[in-house]
């Protein structure tokens, strides 16, 4: 927009200069003609008698060759003596050398006021002389030119504005398309590429380079997924053998034998390793962003998780309250979101004393939906909130409680995967965890 205005102003200045120069030339040439005529008549008046001079003026006035030349000779009472102008123009004597006045001239059946430009000079005996030129045509040309120039400037401005608008629209449209695709990519759809036109302009070059970068990222991410899958496979397979071997041996043993009890401990450890492995793999999966996404009914999810955990909290003497607004949808993984919410609820139940409260909200926050889990347990000191989101951090007080210490890390990874923010806060007393989508 600014550019198109500057462009129009530039064009106006250029055309103005042209107008000025042309006017100079046109005006100058008539003025020179008049100057020359005045000069000539000055010389004639010195050598000719008055009647001869009058004759000369009459003759010049009739001369059709000199188109537009006007003459008027008046006596001391300003009565016309000779010439083709009907009357001495009513112009103050103290006007400058050049005067401009209008004269009615026949134009077809009508008369028309024509602009005259002239010089006056005294003649001997109190007579006066006026020599000039009809500049109506010149005026016409100039005003025509002026109109043309104004039209040109307006047109230029419109073109500039229109062109600017069109180009702006084009760039904005492309930028819009790029940002839409970028959002999809951020949400994890790495197969998407920015739209590129054939043009070799900056924005397309940039888009092409970003696409090259995306190819690289997609390769890396797929590579990570492959590594993750083989790591999973290489850990699950021996764990599975361990479990199978232990179970096979157990089936041969009497229920209460010491050997069987040892093997039971082995399978318990296998279970624990499995849940740690599951958690780690889910965190890694969420962090690589390679999880399939689908529309998730967050309202249904939160409500059903609350419903799932309600009996167990009640059994432990904890009131589980909830307030869930309906109809909230997000793009993501229902299973991972459920797991994250389960971790938060498991934690809340673990840390809330009997007779305490857990409150779960799904509400509309300032920037989008928010899932909030609040408890009135011990909370997390403000200076340790950052740390607990790191991997495998368990505060001293929690060491005696069961758990892998990966719960909040998984919540953090799942939150990030869904483009949400995880905020730990003081619920006064207790902990407030908010997932801000």
């Amino acid at each position, binding site marked *: 927009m600014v550019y198109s205005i500057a462009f129009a102003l530039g064009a106006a200045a250029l055309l103005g200069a042209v107008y000025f120069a042309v006017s100079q030339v046109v005006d100058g040439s008539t003025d020179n003609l008049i100057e020359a005529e005045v000069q000539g008549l000055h010389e004639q008046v010195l050598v000719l008698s008055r009647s001869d001079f009058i004759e000369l003026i009459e003759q010049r006035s009739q001369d059709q060759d000199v188109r537009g030349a006007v003459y008027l000779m008046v006596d001391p009472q300003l009565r016309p003596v000779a010439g083709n102008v009907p009357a001495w123009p009513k112009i103050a004597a103290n006007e400058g050398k050049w005067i401009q006045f209008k004269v009615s001239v026949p134009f077809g059946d009508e008369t028309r006021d024509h602009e005259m430009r002239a010089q006056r000079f005294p003649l001997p005996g109190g007579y006066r002389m006026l020599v000039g030129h009809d500049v109506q045509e010149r005026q016409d040309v100039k005003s025509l030119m002026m109109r043309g120039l104004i039209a040109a400037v307006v047109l230029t401005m419109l073109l500039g504005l229109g062109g600017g608008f069109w180009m702006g629209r084009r760039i904005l449209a492309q930028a819009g398309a790029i940002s839409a695709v970028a959002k999809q990519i951020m949400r994890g759809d790495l197969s998407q590429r920015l739209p590129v036109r054939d043009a070799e302009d900056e924005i397309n070059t940039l888009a092409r380079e970003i696409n090259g970068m995306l190819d690289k990222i997609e390769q890396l991410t797929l590579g990570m997924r492959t590594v993750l899958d083989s790591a999973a496979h290489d850990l699950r397979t021996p*764990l599975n053998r361990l479990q199978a071997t232990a179970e096979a041996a157990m089936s041969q043993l009497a229920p209460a034998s010491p050997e069987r009890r040892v093997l039971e401990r082995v399978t318990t450890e296998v279970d624990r390793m499995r849940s740690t492995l599951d958690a780690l793999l889910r965190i890694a999966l969420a962090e690589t962003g390679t*999880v*399939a996404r689908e529309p998730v009914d967050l309202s249904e999810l939160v409500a059903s998780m609350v419903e799932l955990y309600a009996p167990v909290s009640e059994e432990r003497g904890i009131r589980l309250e909830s307030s869930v607004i309906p109809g909230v949808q997000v793009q993501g993984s229902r299973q991972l979101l459920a797991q994250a919410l389960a971790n938060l609820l498991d934690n809340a139940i673990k840390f809330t004393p009997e007779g305490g409260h857990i409150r779960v909200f799904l509400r509309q926050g300032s920037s989008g939906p928010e899932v909030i889990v609040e408890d009135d347990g011990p909370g997390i000191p403000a200076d340790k909130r950052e740390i607990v989101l790191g991997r495998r951090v368990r505060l001293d007080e929690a060491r005696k409680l069961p758990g892998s210490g990966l719960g909040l890390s998984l919540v953090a990874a799942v939150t990030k995967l869904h483009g949400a923010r995880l905020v730990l806060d003081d619920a006064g007393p207790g902990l407030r965890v908010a997932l801000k989508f």
Partner: protein
Amino acid sequence: MHILIVEDDQIARDYLAKALREAGHTVDVAVNGLEGLQLASSVALDLAIVDRMLPKLDGLALVQSLRATGRKTPVLILSALGEVDDRITGLRAGGDDYLTKPYHMSELLARIDALARRGDSGNSEANTKLKLADLELDRMTRRVTRNGKKIELTAREFQLLEFMMRHSGQVVTRTMLLEGVWDYHFDPQTNVIDVHISRLRQAIDKDFDKPLLHTVRGAGYSLREDE
């Protein structure tokens, strides 16, 4: 039951075959996907247990090929992968159930039992009225009665009972319940399912002499008419 095991890991395969034979099943084994597909296509099977990552022909490709030839043999996929969306891919490929390694034999046995008996019990999907002893559940009117007496249940308890009745006589594990009733696939650290079951038990068994909802130690629960 005639069961095919397609598994390349020898230790896992041998133990699985042994455990299934001990449970009274006829077992065929295949060590790679191609062999598995040949067996599955030529033998009349009641069930196939297919490892997801197999040499020669991938487990998912095996299931897809089997389904493409119109075979409806129930398939349980065993996976050693990262899970979460792998389960969805597995089920979309034509698998009927999906279990991640390492698993407990009791979990696997419960699941193959449920798979094999799907549809042939009196309490199949199509029936609107489910019945076990004097316990009756009407899916249309959402009414549950025991010995003619109306039992009030919450919506979730109703679903839970419906699931249990559909699998009456079988062992149902906690993860099967979490998957079947809530559609969640994770291991809660808290005994959420147990508490739901004990509430259901309160509702249907408390005022009656013969309990129907039994706990199966180390495995899960069973709704049945004995003991």
